[in-house]
C-alpha cells in the first residue's frame, strides 16, 4: 500500500501540533518517525488513524484521496495501530480483545468463541507468538500484551501498521523479538510506521527515517547516519549525548535498606527482600523493566507505601515506620515518577510549587501567614538557576513543557540540604535539551556529597548517570554491577538472569541494539 500524507495540519488552541506535514510510506518499508516527546509524532498518527481530525491537508492511499474520520475508517483502509498505551480491555481474555469490534457471530448475535480462539492461535503460530487465547489480558506480561495488540491489527488485515513507541515497556530481549516480528511483517509486504525517540532503535531497523521537530518535518536521514547526527536533527542543535562526569568518590553509606518487602494492593510481592546501600557521593541507578518493583521501592523509601518487612535507615538513623514528613525532614529529596500526579500542583504557580515542601518554616512561612515576598524572591532565583523557561513565576506549572515542569520539581527538591536524593524516571517525557540539564544537576548534587538513587527504565539514562547499577526483576535485586557493564548483560539481567549467566549469554548472543 502506498500511503501519502500531504500538508497535514492540526492545532490545539494556539499550539500548532502538526504544521503542514508531508510523509510518504512506500509498500513494505519500515519507516521511522523520529522526534522528541511533544514533537507531534503521535498527533500525526492519531490523525492517520482517525482519532483526531486534521484542520487541513489530505491523506492519499494508492493514489486515491481518502477521508478518515474514525478508527473504523482507518481499519477499512488497511491501517492498523499499536498504541503506546495499549488499547486492550484488561478484564477480557485475549480472544475477546481480538474479536472486539469485528466479532464472528452466529444467529442472534451470539459470539462464536471457537472461531475467535482458532484465529488467535493461527496468527500466533504464524509469527511464533505463543499467545493463549483464553488468558486474561491483565494476567499476561506486557510484552505478550503487545503481541496481542499486533495480532489485533493483523486480524483487521492491516497493510500499514503504526507502532507508537512500542519499545518503551520491553526488555532488550523483547525488543529484539519485536524487531524480528517487524522484519517478518515487512517480508509479508506490510509497511510499518515506527514512532520513537530512541536513536539506537532507529538505526537498527529503519529503512527510512523522517525527523519531526516542533510539529514540522525537519528532514530525512539514512539509517547509516550516526547517533550524533540524528540527535542534532531531532533537537535542532548539537547535543552532548554523554554527561561530563568525573569518577565518583563515594564515602560512607548513607542509605541502608535491608530485607525490604512490599506487598502491593493486589497481593503480589512487589518488592521482595531487597538489600541496598547507597553511599555519599555516588549515584546508584536501579535498572529494570517498568513494573518490576522499582516504583514501589522508591515509594517505600519515602514512606508513601506501607512495607511488609525490612528496615530503612539514613545515616544510621532508623526511618522504618516514620512518616513521609519525618523522612523529608531527615534529608531525603524526592522526584516522583509521575510528576504531574505526585510532583507538583498543576494549577499552582511556579513560585508556589517551588516552596511546596518549604512553606511551613522561615523564611517562607511566618506562623499563620505565607511571606509572599520571600517566595517570589526564591522563585526568581530558582528560575534563573535552573533555566526554567516560563513567562513568569506566576504562570501555572501545568502550562509548562514537560522538561520545565521537571526542572521545577528538581529545583524545589534541591533547595534543601539533602543527604539522599531519590529520583524516579527523572527525565521521562522530557526533551533532550532538558535531559542534559537535569542530568548535569543530578551529577552536581552527587559531587556535593549527596547520595543519589535513580530509578530508570532507560538504559541510556542508566549509562549516563550511574556509578553502580542495581538491576531489579520481579521485586528482587538480581545483581549490583558496575556502570560500564555492557548493555546486553544489563538487558539479560533485566529479564532475570544472574550476573554471571548474563555475562556468558551476552557474549554468545549479541542483540541487534547491543551491537550498534
Amino acid at each position, binding site marked *: 500500500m502506498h500511503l501519502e500524507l500531504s500538508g497535514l495540519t492540526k492545532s490545539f488552541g494556539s499550539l500548532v501540533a502538526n504544521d503542514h506535514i508531508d510523509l510518504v510510506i512506500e509498500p513494505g518499508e519500515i519507516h521511522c518517525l523520529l522526534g522528541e516527546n511533544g514533537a507531534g509524532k503521535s498527533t500525526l498518527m492519531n490523525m492517520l488513524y482517525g482519532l483526531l481530525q486534521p484542520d487541513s491537508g489530505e491523506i492519499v492511499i494508492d493514489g486515491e484521496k481518502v477521508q478518515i474520520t474514525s478508527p473504523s475508517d482507518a481499519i477499512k483502509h488497511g491501517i492498523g*495501530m499499536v498504541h503506546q498505551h495499549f488499547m486492550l480491555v484488561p478484564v477480557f481474555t485475549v480472544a475477546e*480483545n481480538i474479536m472486539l469490534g469485528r466479532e464472528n457471530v452466529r444467529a442472534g448475535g*451470539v459470539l462464536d468463541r471457537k472461531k475467535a480462539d482458532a484465529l488467535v492461535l493461527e496468527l500466533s503460530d504464524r509469527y511464533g507468538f505463543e499467545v493463549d487465547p483464553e488468558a486474561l489480558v491483565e494476567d499476561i506480561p506486557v510484552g505478550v500484551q503487545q503481541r496481542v495488540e499486533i495480532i489485533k491489527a493483523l486480524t483487521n488485515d492491516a497493510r500499514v501498521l503504526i507502532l507508537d513507541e512500542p519499545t518503551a515497556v520491553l526488555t532488550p*530481549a523483547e525488543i529484539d523479538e519485536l524487531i524480528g516480528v517487524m522484519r517478518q511483517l515487512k517480508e509479508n509486504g506490510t509497511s510499518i510506521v515506527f514512532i520513537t525517540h530512541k536513536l539506537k532503535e532507529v538505526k537498527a531497523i529503519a529503512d527510512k527515517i523522517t525527523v519531526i521537530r516542533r510539529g514540522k518535518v525537519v528532514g530525512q536521514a539514512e539509517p547509516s547516519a550516526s547517533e550524533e547526527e540524528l540527535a542534532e536533527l531531532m533537537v535542532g542543535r548539537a547535543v552532548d549525548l554523554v554527561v561530563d562526569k568525573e569518577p565518583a568518590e563515594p564515602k560512607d553509606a548513607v542509605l541502608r535498606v535491608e530485607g525490604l518487602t512490599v506487598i*502491593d494492593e493486589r*497481593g503480589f*510481592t512487589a518488592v521482595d527482600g531487597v538489600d541496598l546501600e547507597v553511599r555519599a557521593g555516588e549515584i546508584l541507578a536501579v535498572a529494570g523493566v517498568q513494573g518490576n518493583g522499582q516504583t514501589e521501592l522508591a515509594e517505600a523509601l519515602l514512606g508513601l507505601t506501607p512495607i511488609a518487612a525490612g528496615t530503612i535507615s539514613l545515616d544510621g538513623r532508623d526511618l522504618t515506620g516514620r512518616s513521609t514528613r519525618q523522612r523529608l525532614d531527615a534529608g531525603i529529596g524526592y522526584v516522583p515518577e509521575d510528576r504531574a500526579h505526585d510532583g507538583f500542583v498543576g494549577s499552582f504557580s511556579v513560585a508556589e510549587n517551588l516552596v511546596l515542601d518549604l512553606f511551613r518554616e522561615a523564611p517562607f512561612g511566618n506562623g499563620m501567614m505565607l511571606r509572599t515576598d520571600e517566595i517570589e524572591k526564591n522563585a526568581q532565583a530558582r528560575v534563573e538557576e535552573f533555566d526554567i523557561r516560563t513567562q513568569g513565576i506566576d504562570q501555572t506549572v501545568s502550562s509548562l513543557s514537560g522538561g520545565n515542569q521537571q526542572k521545577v520539581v528538581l529545583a524545589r527538591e534541591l533547595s534543601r540540604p539533602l543527604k539522599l536524593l531519590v529520583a524516579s524516571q527523572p527525565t521521562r517525557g522530557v526533551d533532550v535539551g532538558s535531559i542534559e540539564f537535569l542530568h548535569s544537576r543530578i551529577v552536581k548534587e552527587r559531587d556535593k556529597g549527596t547520595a543519589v538513587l535513580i530509578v530508570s527504565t532507560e538504559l541510556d539514562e542508566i549509562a549516563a548517570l550511574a556509578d553502580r547499577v542495581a538491576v531489579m526483576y520481579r521485586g528482587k535485586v538480581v545483581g549490583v554491577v558496575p556502570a560500564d557493564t555492557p548493555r546486553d548483560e544489563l538487558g539479560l539481567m533485566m529479564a532475570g538472569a544472574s550476573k554471571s549467566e548474563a555475562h556468558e*549469554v551476552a557474549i554468545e548472543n549479541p542483540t541487534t541494539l547491543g551491537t550498534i
Partner: protein
Amino acid sequence: MTETTPDAVPAAPAKPQVIEAPADRTRRLRVGGVMLVFALIGLGLAAFTKSGKATFQLVSGDLEHNLLGLPAQPVAIVLGILGVGAAVAYILRQVPQRYAGWLAAVLGVAFIGAFLCWASAGKTFPLANQFQGTLNFATPLILGALAGVLCERAGVINIAIEGQFLVGAFTAALVSSTTNSATAALIAAAASGVLMAALLAVFSIKYLVNQVVLGVVLVVFATGITGFLFDQFMQPEAEKLNTPNVLSAVKIPGLADIPFIGPILFNQTILVYLTYLAVAVVTFVLFETRWGLRIRAVGEHPKAADTVGIKVKRIRYSAVLAAGVLAGLGGAFFTVGYAGSFAKEMTAGNGFIALAALIMGRWHPIGAMVAALFFGFATQLQSQLQIIQTPIPGELLLMAPYLATIIAVAGLVGRVRAPKADGEPYVTE
C-alpha cells in the same frame, strides 16, 4: 537477524506467588470478626431457646397438614456451632479464597436457621409465606438491579432506578385502570422506564452531567411529577384512574406441583416469570453476545473500544435504554403486580436497595439476583416476626434489612471491582 531468548533466561516463569496484601488481611480479619459476632449471637440465641418444638408451616394457609416440627433448642445449637465453625474457618483461612464466600453463606443460613428456631420455639412459623413474601419483595429489586447492571456495565451510573420505579408504577396503574389490559399496562410501564432512561442517557452521555447528581435529580423529578399527577388528576378520579387490575397468577402445570417450592416459584404472575427470564437473558446477553461484549468493553475501556471502530456512545445509549425497560417493569410490579393501586412515593427507597443489590452482587446479573433475594428475605422476615411476636421490638426488626444492607455492602462483598469506566463520560478530542 539475531537469536534471542537464550537458555539462561528463565522462559516465562510461573506467575508470581500471591501473598495476602496487608489491606486484604485487615479486610479478612474485619469481615471475619463481623461473622464471628453474628455466629456468637446465633449460638447465644440457641442457648436462650425455649424447650419445645418449633413448627414450620410448609404450605401457605394450611395449619393442619404439611407441618415440620423440629426440637427447637438442639437444632439451634447445632446450627449455632456450624456458624461459629464457618466464621473461624474464614478467619483462619481454612478454605481457598474463592470459596470463602461459601463460608459466609453457610454462616448466613445457620444464623437465620438458629434465629428462626429461637423465634418460633413453641410456636408455628409460616415458612411458605416467608418464601412467598421474599419473592414478592425481591421481584422489583431484581428487575431494578438488572437495569443497573446493564447501565453500569456500559459505564453509566444509574442512581435513578428509584425514579424509574415510581414512573413505571404510576404508568402501569394508570394504563391498567383505563384500558383493563395487563399487556398494555406492562408495555406502557416499560416505555415510561425507557423515557426516564432516555433523560439519564442524554444528560450523562451527551451533556456529560455528573451521573450521581443527575441520578438523584431524576429521582426527585420522578417523585415530583408522579406526586403532581397523582394529586391533580389521578386522586380526584381514583375510581376511574387508580383501580388497576392486579395481575393474576398463572400456574405452570407440572412445575407448580413440586412440593414446597412449586407453588412458591411456579404459581406466579407473568411479571415474576418475566423476571426469571430477564435474569437469564441479561446474563446470556452480557457474556455471550456481540452486544454484551461491546457493552462490557465500553464500560471498561471506552477508548480501546473506539480504536476498534465501536461507536462508544451508541452502545451506551442502547444499554441505558434497554435497562429502562427492566426498571419500568420493576416499577409496574408495585402497582399491577402487588398493591393494586398507586400511592405517592410508594416505592419507598426500593430503587436504592436495588442499587445496593447490584453492588453487593458485584455487577453480575446472577449476583444481583442473589443479593436482591437476600434483601427480600430480610424484609419479609421482619414482617413475619412481628406477626408471631418475638421479644424483639418491631422497630428494631424494621431496621434489620437496612442494617444488613450496610454491613453487606461495606464489608462482606470482599473487594468490589466496578467496571473501570463506570461513571466516566467518553469524550473524544
